[in-house]
């Protein structure tokens, strides 16, 4: 068993770290405050190949593996969780399913420019009435000649406003329930598709979260991803990989909070000594260090399983569950270590705390991860 990254993975990590430190970190607080999508730095991420890491070069990507993807994503998240979600959505929720299930014609048009980061993709599954219960899809796609006509509403779509294409899940056969769900690649400019609103959020404020409305939106049948009725399986397998990304994001956020806490514990003094000398602060720091390390190991293991082509659904769920819970606990304690300074916006830990919360919610809440894990350990495949 080896616990070291390959030379390439280390170089990718170093590149992502330096880039994030010098170009993303300086603007992170400002874009959070203004809830401003960082077009410039997202473009830089594209130039560096960070938006299509796992896609082969032939399809516009970087030809990297999932482990490279998670180590890079952790570095980006450490600087700014909003950038991390844009990166995660494009890589694992959009490019990966198109790469895995798309035809060559679909990849030409819906993958190459997206893996290169010239355009961004998004993933539209959640509906107002269907979050955790993703089988309960109300958006309908009705076959009409060589096209489908889409009607319905998708909610909480990350990068929904900025993306130029969406992977949309619709019911094509209501009677078949989850087996009647199909996936479609829809250009955002398609007539009948509109962005009805963008959300004002607690955290990851520089990323956009939008509501997409489909009103008699005609989508050529050639843009159906996979077979009719295969949609739900596509969604689940995509989320298996996506969760590894969110786990990496959570590790990055937690690490940022932890590093700030260490620095603060060294320099801040109380009762005549640096606060890091107080046992109760040490306790928190030790817990942070241990759980972050555990979360990272789970995350990288899930990524390595995926790279090996091995089943990784449960490993991904465990990684995401543990990393998200770790991020929430670590960022909460980081504020505690900072005392009053942790509660004000001048110090970044307050932002880490707000950003951490979403990792317990999106791409499957912590409760859903437990469900996935439980089904796995009980021998029932989800």
């Amino acid at each position, binding site marked *: 068993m080896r616990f070291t990254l390959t030379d390439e993975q280390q170089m990718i990590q170093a590149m992502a770290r330096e880039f994030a430190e010098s170009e993303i970190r300086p603007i992170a607080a400002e874009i959070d405050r203004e809830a401003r999508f960082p077009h410039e730095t997202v473009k830089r991420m594209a130039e560096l*190949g960070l938006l299509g890491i796992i896609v082969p070069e032939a399809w516009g990507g970087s*030809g*990297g593996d999932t482990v490279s993807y998670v180590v890079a994503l952790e570095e980006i998240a450490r600087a700014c969780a909003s950038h991390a979600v844009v990166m995660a959505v494009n890589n694992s929720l959009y490019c990966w399913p198109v790469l895995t299930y798309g035809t060559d014609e679909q990849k030409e048009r819906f993958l190459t420019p997206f893996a290169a980061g010239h355009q961004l993709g998004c993933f539209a599954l959640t509906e107002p009435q269907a979050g955790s219960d993703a089988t309960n899809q109300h958006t309908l796609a009705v076959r009409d000649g060589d096209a489908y006509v889409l009607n319905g509403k998708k909610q909480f779509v990350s990068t929904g406003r900025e993306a130029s294409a969406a992977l949309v899940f619709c019911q094509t056969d209501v009677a078949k329930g989850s087996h009647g769900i199909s996936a479609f690649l829809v250009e955002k400019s398609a007539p009948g598709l509109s962005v009805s609103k963008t959300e004002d959020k607690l955290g990851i404020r520089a990323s956009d979260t939008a509501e997409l409305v489909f009103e008699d939106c005609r989508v050529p049948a050639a843009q159906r991803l996979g077979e009719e009725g295969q949609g739900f399986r596509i969604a689940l397998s995509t989320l298996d990989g996506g969760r590894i990304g969110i786990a990496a994001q959570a590790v990055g956020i937690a690490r940022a909070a932890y590093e700030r806490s260490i620095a603060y514990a060294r320099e801040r003094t109380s009762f005549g000594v640096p606060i890091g000398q107080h046992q109760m602060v040490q306790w928190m720091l030790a817990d942070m260090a241990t759980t972050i390390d555990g979360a990272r190991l789970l995350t990288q293991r899930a990524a390595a399983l995926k790279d090996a082509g091995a089943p990784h659904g449960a490993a991904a769920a465990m990684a995401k569950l543990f990393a998200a819970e770790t991020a929430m606990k670590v960022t909460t304690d980081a504020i505690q270590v900072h005392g009053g300074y942790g509660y004000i916006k001048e110090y970044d830990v307050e932002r880490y705390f707000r950003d951490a919360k979403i990792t317990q919610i999106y791409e499957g809440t912590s409760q859903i991860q437990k469900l996935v894990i439980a089904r796995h350990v009980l021998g029932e495949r989800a």
Partner: protein
Amino acid sequence: MKILVAIKQVPDTATQMKLGADGKTIDPTGITWIVSPYDEFAVEEALRIKEKRGQGEVVAVSLGPDRVKEALRSCLAMGCDRAIHLNDPAWGAADTLMTARALAAVVKQEAPQLVLCGRQAIDDDMGALPAQLGELLGWPSAYWIMEEAVDADGKTVRVARQVEGGLEVFDLPLPAIVTAQKGLNEPRYPTLKGIMGAKKKELKDVKAADVGLAAEAPQLSITALEALPPRPPGRIIQGDLPTAVKELVRSLREDAKAI
């Protein structure tokens, strides 16, 4: 145009330096090694020249132990076409002049039109190598370059070098050596594709005998390496602003005699 870039692997500035047991070297444990920052300016400039001309080859060269391969690989990831690693125990105690001799031997073999270097490596801060290489080759060397432009037919390079009180602009006939000062450019990050492609590029090991050099003794040797003597403890001047300022000026005048 063929361009050779001489780089050095150095400890990251933020690394804490510990003395080795022999009192002459540093303890390498826990050191993060990087390409010396000025050398990155040189690599970047070489790549820009190649890109601007639409053709050419950029060869990264470095002297040092096995770990130096990492630094050369990151140059390949940035976009250098191939790399040469001068890796021989005979160069273990190399001073600047020995290093310059080794590089000069490689330059003679490779015959580039231009050699780019950083203004100095941030480990020993000697800053002598480019000049010594120029001297050994009989080439002009231009120091602390803020601007550089190779002419269209590749015969001369125009450089602006930083001197006290201004910039001096010179035309150098090629082949020549140009050393990069901060401000020359902003080095790129390696892209993922660059990183993934680096391992497919040639990274050649070269021994002293391969470039026709015999073992020699260094002309400058380190007899001891010491920690910095601690500065006497300072004093935070307390009190309200007018009092503190008055006390500071009094101390600078009367105690420190610095004003």
